[in-house]
């Protein structure tokens, strides 16, 4: 039996299949590109040739697109990304005390004590330091994002970049470029600025204790890891499947859920070939004027959400 986890994030859509022993059997890292349905279908097209519907014992979804993903695949568990990340990290190493997670659009800190989450925080006002910002800077400097971290590590000195806000950080970077600093130094400075920003905003007032896990897409950036270690003065560990932790967590949560309920809602891999459409309309039922999203599979409505009263979303028991 296998367990499927789907994490639909702002930048990437991750699918993971775990085997009976909770080991990662298959992992897919796809770009969401603003089209969550297409991304899930793309992933399922790969999986459908390798696995049968009956082999999947449980499905969990997470990420900002967890609702839409759940409607599509028939999830057993729909969980927020904070819990999913914590569950996956604890499964990888039960001694983890702090999780630093930086994804495409948001960054989080999760504090764990005696194996349970005791505190967490998410970035509120600013997206500086998240994956999309680094992506954009890499593009601007014409350096592949995969090599971004290496540049930072090669730099001997560092340039101080104002990292309070993404827009100002970018202008400051341009300014430093015009002054003639080399790329490596600027990138290292940028990593340090982002870490400063993270610790001051997200990590403010939180006790960061070892063992620290650094996960999410940005953990691939060696420069960021080095900057965190320097700022915190402790080693930061990167779990093996750092960019899949959300999906792994979702699969684990779904596994637990199905062990309690006994059966899965999984709809099968066929949806890869279905035609989906999503329409939104403003409900005129009352003065709330909710924006309702309607998802159709082959012209049959499979789910609605966005309404407060349940007039649309409760009509179909998903």
């Amino acid at each position, binding site marked *: 039996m296998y367990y499927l986890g789907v994490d639909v994030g702002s930048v990437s859509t991750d699918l993971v299949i775990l085997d009976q022993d909770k080991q990662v059997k298959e992992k897919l890292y796809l770009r969401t590109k603003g089209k969550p349905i297409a991304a899930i279908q793309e992933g399922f097209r790969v999986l459908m040739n390798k696995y049968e519907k009956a082999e999947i014992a449980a499905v969990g979804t997470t990420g*900002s697109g967890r609702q839409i993903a759940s409607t599509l695949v028939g999830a057993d568990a729909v*969980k*927020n*990304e*904070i*819990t999913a990340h914590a569950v996956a990290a604890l499964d990888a190493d039960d001694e983890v005390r702090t999780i630093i997670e930086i994804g495409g659009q*948001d960054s989080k800190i999760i504090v764990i*004590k*005696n*194996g*349970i*989450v*005791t*505190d*967490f925080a*998410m970035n*509120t006002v600013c997206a500086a330091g998240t994956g999309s910002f680094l992506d954009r800077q890499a593009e601007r400097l014409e350096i592949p994002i995969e090599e971004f971290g290496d540049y930072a590590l090669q730099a001997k000195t560092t340039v101080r970049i104002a990292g309070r806000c993404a827009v100002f950080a970018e202008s400051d970077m341009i300014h430093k470029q015009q002054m003639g600093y080399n790329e490596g130094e600027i990138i290292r400075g940028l990593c340090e600025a982002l870490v400063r920003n993270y610790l001051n905003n997200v990590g403010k*007032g939180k006790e960061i204790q070892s063992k620290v896990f650094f996960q999410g897409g940005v953990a691939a950036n060696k420069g960021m890891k080095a900057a965190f270690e320097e700022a915190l003065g402790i080693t930061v560990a990167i779990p093996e499947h750092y960019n899949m932790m959300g999906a792994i967590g979702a699969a684990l949560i779904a596994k637990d859920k199905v062990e309690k309920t006994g059966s899965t809602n999984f709809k099968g891999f066929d949806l890869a070939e279905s035609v989906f459409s999503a329409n939104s309309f403003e409900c005129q039922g*009352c*003065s*709330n*004027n909710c924006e309702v999203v309607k998802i159709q599979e082959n012209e049959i409505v499979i789910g609605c959400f966005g309404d*407060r*009263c*349940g007039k649309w979303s409760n009509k179909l028991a998903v």
Partner: protein
Amino acid sequence: MKITFPHMGNVHFAAKALFEDLEIDYVVPPFSSKASLEIGSFHSAEEMCLPFKIMIGNYMHAIEEGADTVIITGSCGPCRFGEYCELQMNLLNKLGHKLDFIVVDSPGDIGVKELFARLGKISSSSSISKLNKIRALHQATKVVRLIDGVEAKARYLAGFEKNKGECKKLLNECKQEAQNCKKSQSMLALMNGYMDKLDNVALDNDKNPIKIAIIGEIYTVIEPFSNLYIEDKLMDYGVSTKRTLSPSWWLKNLVLSPTNLNQLDLKRKAKEYLPLMIGGHARECIGEAVLAHDEGFDGAIQIFPMGCMPEIVSKAILPKISKDKDFPILTLVVDEMTGEAGYVTRIEAFVDLLERRKDNVLSRC
């Protein structure tokens, strides 16, 4: 004279009952929505707090329906709310709307005489007898107390109900039908009926639900639109919630404030952390957090609008309480830029956190 007022949770029920009993023409603005917020944000200064913007939206909608007089509550406390009436009058004047503002303030600040003079302005347009006017006021306070009671009961029982969603359904029905009632008497009868229905909801007494106290800035905790309907969401998760601040609480506090006998329990609870009144309801917020812990709640959620001075102070104190008492507290800041996805993620994760703590007894060691 056609009276209107800004929305704040259940206040509109009391206002409707009062004006109908007094036989005064009035307009209930459409419920706060994205549209009211958009209009309000358009006309207000960018850094102004969220309640101000939503209120402006309410006035503009009411003006479209012919309102010419606004009743709002005032406050001479050290927080921006004290300036609301002046700023709003100014703003609406500049937009070319000649509105009369009647500011109901605490008798401790403006004196009983002035308060009665202001209230007299409202009642002068009513043709019923003086005795009936007093009766109308009394009935209106009963309405607000009752609907706050119905709401508090439904929110608390939501964690214990056998059939999921029953309490929420009853609460929504009650509010929906109360809007169609004429005068206070029928409204009270209807609400009493729903109170009985809530008493008869099938409960699962073996359940041990997560209990969360909602604390923070008064407007954003009471007006559901401004906090993105957090209490409804928590009801859906099967969480029992309690909120001390409500329109009826405010009323009682207002009446008792000149005697200094108001909120004795909250003041006592807050004493260790914040012994002074620093404006807004910061001291109450601290007191409620301590009280919620003492009452065996699992956690608290603090909500306040971006830039709210008193609540920023309490936000800085809450981590200490959280640490001292091992009591999780989540802080949510709302303004017109609040994205619902991140907001819901935090609430869900907080509920998960409380659930896992509860299952894991060791964590409390």
